[in-house]
């Protein structure tokens, strides 16, 4: 228990260090999630809309989800050297699979009746995508984004071994920061992970049309994307 109190004390006393590392952590994670979103969401949504490419969207992504983060960062380090870019690339590689799979499954599994009805009303494919499929796909789509966001924030701690900065620099340096620094930084990482999840949860609520709004479920750190998951 005293370790915990020491850790809180560390957070208060070394707040400037923590703020600096937290900022680095956020910039890195934010950039990785941003790039991953730009790649995975359009690709997944378009493939899902066309009901094509399930092999890429599901199989390749499943392999992608199996990638150990340290191994990906290590390989990136070998090829790209130390620094921000290497870690960014590695984190994007880790973040794309859950977003892509969920975006694909979400749009692919929109009820065909709803799409048929929209087509019967004379909607163009673009309108169908924009006004029917996307709103209905939002919950699953966001489930994938939230999984990826939490995963990226947690994995970004490993950036420190590759010169990417962030809170991992404290976690990997117990010799300098002692146990209280370790626990303090761990607490900050956990809080950031929850905050990232809450952020995208809030965004999901904002984007969901009122007619479709139900309560947004709390974060489920279940890495099985809902679409591929268990017998529900």
């Amino acid at each position, binding site marked *: 228990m005293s370790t915990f109190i020491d850790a809180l004390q560390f957070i208060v006393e070394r707040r400037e260090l923590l703020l600096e590392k937290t900022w680095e952590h956020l910039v890195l994670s934010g950039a990785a999630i941003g790039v991953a979103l730009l790649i995975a969401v359009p690709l997944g949504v378009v493939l899902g809309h066309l009901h094509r490419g399930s092999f890429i969207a*599901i*199989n390749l992504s*499943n*392999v992608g*989800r*199996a*990638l*150990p*983060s*340290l*191994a*990906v960062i*290590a*390989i990136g*380090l*070998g*090829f790209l050297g*130390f620094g921000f870019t290497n870690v960014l690339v590695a984190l994007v590689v880790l973040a794309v699979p859950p977003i892509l799979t969920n975006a694909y499954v979400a749009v692919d599994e929109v009820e065909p009746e709803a799409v048929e009805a929209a087509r019967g009303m004379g909607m163009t494919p673009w309108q169908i995508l924009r006004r029917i499929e996307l709103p209905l796909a939002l919950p699953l789509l966001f489930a994938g984004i939230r999984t990826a966001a939490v995963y990226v924030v*947690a994995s970004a*701690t*490993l950036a420190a*071994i590759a010169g990417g900065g962030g809170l*991992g620099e404290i*976690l*990997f340096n*117990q010799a300098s920061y002692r*146990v209280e620094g*370790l*626990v303090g*930084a*761990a607490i900050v*990482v*956990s809080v950031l*992970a*929850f905050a990232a999840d809450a952020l995208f949860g809030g965004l999901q609520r904002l984007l969901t049309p009122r007619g479709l709004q139900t309560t947004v479920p709390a974060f*489920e*750190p*279940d*890495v*099985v994307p809902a679409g*591929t*998951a*268990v*017998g*529900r």
Partner: protein
Amino acid sequence: MNQEPVIPDFGEAASCVAENRYFCPDWVRDNWGSVFQPALIEHVKLTVIAVVVGFVIAFAAALVAHRYRIAEQPFAIFSAIVYTIPGIALFQLLVPFTGLSVLTVEVALVGYTLLILFRNILEGLRAAPPEVLEAARGMGLTRRQTLLRVELPLALPAIVAGLRVATVSTIALATIAAFVIPEGLGQPIFAALRNYFKTEIITAGVLAILLAVTADLLLVLAQRLLTPWASARRIAT
């Protein structure tokens, strides 16, 4: 263990290592038996022990929670808290209690499997439709018979799906454990980081990825074999 990349040798292998090229096949061949093979075997052992122990604990907890709903929250909260602790931190924090030993790695790895396994097993057990349970009762099955013959078989897809995620994430976390305890495929990665020896970093990284992907594929196969009735479409491939 000799980690020095500078090997007194002549010819191409030595120049490749001296120039620190991306991949020196000769060096990997020479050091396969002393570096990579033991690390790979250790890694598999670490993973199997962690997933088996984690499964036993999570299964017991899920059975209790299935029977007594009140038991669900405490275990779910406990395992969720463990799950949010960053890996590097947990491995280091356990050292004062369990020492610089394999036990430290295993305790942490088991801890990380609990949430996923518990969730999936419990969801699986609860997935039995009420009609089926009614029918089971109508046939005069006891509670235990219902569990063994109805609920557990119906829970299999969810259980194997959970095992799959738990195994793959354990393989990933076990690489990080090498920062604290020199075991598994993370060990050559961290060792080679000190002098930025690319061949060793990349080889160990690729091996870890291959191990994770192989384990994933084997479990998919197991899933298909164990639950032939589940339509192929719904099951994660």
